[in-house]
């Protein structure tokens, strides 16, 4: 035998080839899926060059300024609101102890189950001029209209308040996970450098949690930008209402698509600039050893204040609207609660569950693909694929219909021509199209969670497993999945709840004779029958509640792998 291997030894044996193909197969399928998911977004962009100058002139001269201004104000106030509620609550529940802390910890997530449009209905019912609050004020003080000032619920401010109340849990949840995974060492270092607990919070804990807070805010903002139901109901004209007004009212699809494309570009620029702003910073703590923060016990007025701070968002974002819905439901349940209702509830449950699993699988494929291969193409494709979260559901739905129908028509034409069979629509109008739309719409939520989780697993862990004989797929199964359990559960729950609440895409894409609770709620509410709409709305909240409680139990445990194991190990 030769001492040095010769080139003749190079032709590789078949099993080795297979392995390589599997390795690259991951990249290929991740790329394919990312491009597929990006397709609807690209379909919308394909209208960008269509001429629509006259509509733009009209919009520019009349309403475009309002759309932009209102959207920006919404974003600003929602950002301030969700941070102002989410971060203090997260901080208090993760480093302090005060009466009620244990159950507030998970109860603070409950508003997540409340769709923004439903909370808008209920608060309008409560706070509108004709509602019980103002009526009571008038009877008590013998006022009549014009005698007193009451904040108008149907206003930009009202819309901001609604979004803040149901979206702050994103910031709360992610900030809390970040606070819990911070090592005590960093905070203690800051104490030894002379920073008090408050400065420690602002100079160390908060900056370290910054990516988590920003991730939470961006989820909240994307959902705000995509919202149609709430702002329309409140008569606030935003970029999104503008898209529909242009499309339906002016009948100009091209200009509407261009507005939508502008919205997506705007979001894209925001995301990129945020990434750029922290390009050099690393946020995982390097130490292999980790000591959890010790809780600081609050006493006296501090404890009371902490309880109140955490109780208020829960009351306003969940308890009050649920009570109002419950009161309405009591008026109507006899006629609404029937077999059809149960069927719809079950259909919704199944649909949301399937969608959540599907979206999670895609997020894992893409997230892990990015971990395996630093392909620029894949990164860009994933970024475009994730933008769907900021795009109104209806736009996504049209973006889904276009390629699906094109595919169906092609197959139909081919089959008719060569076999004389008309296949009609194979995918359009099926649950496949609907599930695909959910994937496009909600991928960002799952991806963000999964990627954050993967980022906490050090790369050497993968290498170690590979050197012990595991293929990339097995590494995912035997190392990452167990370590990511918390993140995966979070992703599933978030997508599940989002699908549960999703309306516009479901409305357009769903198959014949298929309804969801959100559709039922919308149909009744759009007919202005709020009382009748309350039962399906309550059902949405109730079904969403279960996984949210599950999730909150999961995030009670810190999210680093080390600590995960620390808790399971005992």
């Amino acid at each position: 035998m030769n001492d040095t291997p010769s080139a003749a030894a190079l032709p590789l044996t078949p099993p080795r080839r297979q392995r390589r193909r599997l390795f690259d197969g991951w990249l290929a399928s991740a790329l394919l899926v990312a491009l597929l998911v990006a397709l609807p977004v690209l379909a919308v962009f394909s209208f960008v060059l269509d001429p629509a100058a006259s509509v733009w002139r009209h919009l520019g001269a009349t309403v475009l300024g309002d759309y932009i201004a209102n959207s920006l104000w919404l974003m600003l106030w929602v950002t301030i609101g969700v941070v102002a509620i989410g971060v203090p609550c997260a901080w208090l529940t993760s480093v302090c102890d005060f009466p009620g802390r244990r159950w507030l910890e998970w109860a603070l997530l409950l508003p997540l189950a409340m769709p923004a449009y439903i909370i808008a209905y209920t608060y309008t019912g409560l706070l509108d001029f004709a509602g019980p609050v103002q009526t009571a004020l008038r009877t008590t003080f013998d006022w009549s209209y014009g005698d007193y000032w009451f904040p108008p619920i149907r206003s930009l401010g009202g819309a901001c308040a609604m979004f803040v109340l149901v979206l702050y849990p994103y910031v709360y949840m992610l900030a809390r996970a970040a606070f819990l995974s911070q090592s005590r060492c960093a905070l203690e270092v800051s104490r030894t450098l002379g920073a008090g607990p408050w400065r420690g919070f602002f100079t160390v804990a908060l900056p370290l949690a910054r990516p988590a807070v920003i991730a939470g805010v961006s989820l909240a903002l994307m959902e705000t930008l995509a919202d149609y139901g709430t702002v329309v109901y409140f008569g606030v004209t935003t970029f999104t209402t503008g898209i529909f007004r242009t499309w339906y009212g002016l009948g100009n699809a091209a200009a509407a698509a261009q507005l939508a494309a502008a919205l997506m570009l705007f979001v894209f620029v925001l995301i990129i600039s945020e990434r750029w702003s922290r390009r050099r910073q690393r946020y995982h703590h390097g130490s292999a050893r980790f000591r959890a923060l010790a809780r600081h016990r609050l006493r006296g007025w501090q404890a009371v204040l902490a309880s109140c701070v955490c109780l208020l968002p829960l009351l306003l974002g969940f308890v009050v609207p649920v009570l109002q819905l419950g009161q309405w439901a009591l008026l109507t349940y006899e006629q609404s609660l029937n077999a059809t209702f149960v069927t719809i509830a079950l259909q919704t449950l199944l649909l949301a569950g399937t969608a959540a699993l599907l979206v999670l699988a895609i997020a894992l494929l893409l997230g892990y693909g990015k971990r395996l291969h630093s392909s620029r193409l894949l990164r860009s494709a994933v970024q475009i694929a994730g933008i769907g979260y900021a795009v109104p559901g209806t736009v996504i739905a049209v973006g889904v219909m276009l390629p699906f129908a094109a595919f169906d028509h092609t197959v139909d034409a081919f089959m008719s021509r060569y076999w004389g069979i008309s296949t009609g629509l194979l995918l359009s109008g099926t649950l496949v199209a609907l599930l695909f739309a959910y994937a496009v719409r909600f991928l960002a939520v799952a991806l963000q969670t999964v990627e954050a989780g993967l980022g906490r697993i050090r790369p050497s862990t993968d290498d170690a497993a590979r050197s012990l004989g595991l293929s990339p797929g097995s590494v995912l199964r035997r190392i990452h999945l167990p370590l990511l359990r918390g993140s995966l559960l979070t992703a599933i729950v978030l997508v599940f709840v989002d699908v549960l609440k999703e309306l516009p895409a479901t409305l357009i894409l769903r198959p014949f004779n298929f309804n969801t609770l959100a559709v039922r709620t919308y149909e009744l509410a759009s007919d202005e029958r709020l009382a009748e709409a309350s039962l399906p709305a309550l059902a949405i909240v109730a079904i969403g509640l279960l996984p949210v409680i599950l999730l909150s139990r999961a995030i009670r445990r810190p999210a680093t792998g080390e600590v995960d194991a620390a808790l399971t190990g005992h």
Partner: protein
Amino acid sequence: MFQRLTLLLTATLLSCSAFASGELNVYSSRQEQLIAPLIEQFSKQTGIVVNVVTGKDDALIERLRIEGRNSPADLLWTADAGRLHRAKSQGLLQPIESEVLEAVIPAHLRDADQQWFGLTTRARPIMYARDRVDPAELSTYEALADPKWKRRICVRSSDNIYNQSLVAAMIEHLGEERTEAWTRGLVANFARPPAGGDREQISAVAAGVCDIAIANTYYLGGMLKSPNAADRQAAEKVAVFWPNQDGTGTHVNITGAGVTKAARNRDNAIRLIEFMVSDEAQQWYAEGNSEYPVKAGVEWSEVLKRWGEFKADELPMNVLGENNAAALRLMDRAGWK
């Protein structure tokens, strides 16, 4: 095991697309609860299975357009003439000849080319606070631009199709220039920025925020029948005034349906429309949502009788669709949010 599961799942997912021949497929922007009992009745009478997707008119039309000649939909059912006209102008509907429909439905309530047919009419009159407004002060839509109504009028947003249709009709009657002047005057009289639906406007009148509202009658009807006592009390405080009785008549829109161009069950689709103009269906359909039957001689519901007879605008319905974009631009210019 896994493979079998996948197969099963795929079959379930795709089965929704498979529609047996002869089954009638309907895209409807009328809420399910408003049409389900009638469809059930129709199926019982004819043995024809009907499948329904409900949704917003514009979105359904878009779906129809994208699905093209392969669309499974046989019938498009909407709550607005403008949308039916849009579907027609995009080539999504087909003309049908039906002696029944031509005989029963007045010409201005159906398409000139027989591509769609009105099934009920819905009126958008003025509503006023019984205790604060003397109906003698009221006359026409045009008169609402008078400064004496300053801060006394509640109307919902111009995003809403009913307002778009109203302005589209005004453009036809008055011309664009005068309509814009009228719209500016009306907007100047708003008591508050437009928000909420028609019911909210009616409630606002009842609560004293404003004195008059422009709203569709069936919302008032819905409030009168509401399970919520507060709604019923509010509705009692508000009365209907039929404007423009000496001129063009009160603005009405229709709910209606048309057979799609891609229809594979054209005959069954026609049967359903014909069924809808039968006495029985007309009565139930109109009564269910406090709308007006298109068929003459069908008995009105108690609520409708209470509001009284009125002269309806007999403008051909397709005008509403044709003028829709112009109306919207005009409202944008006039600052009607």
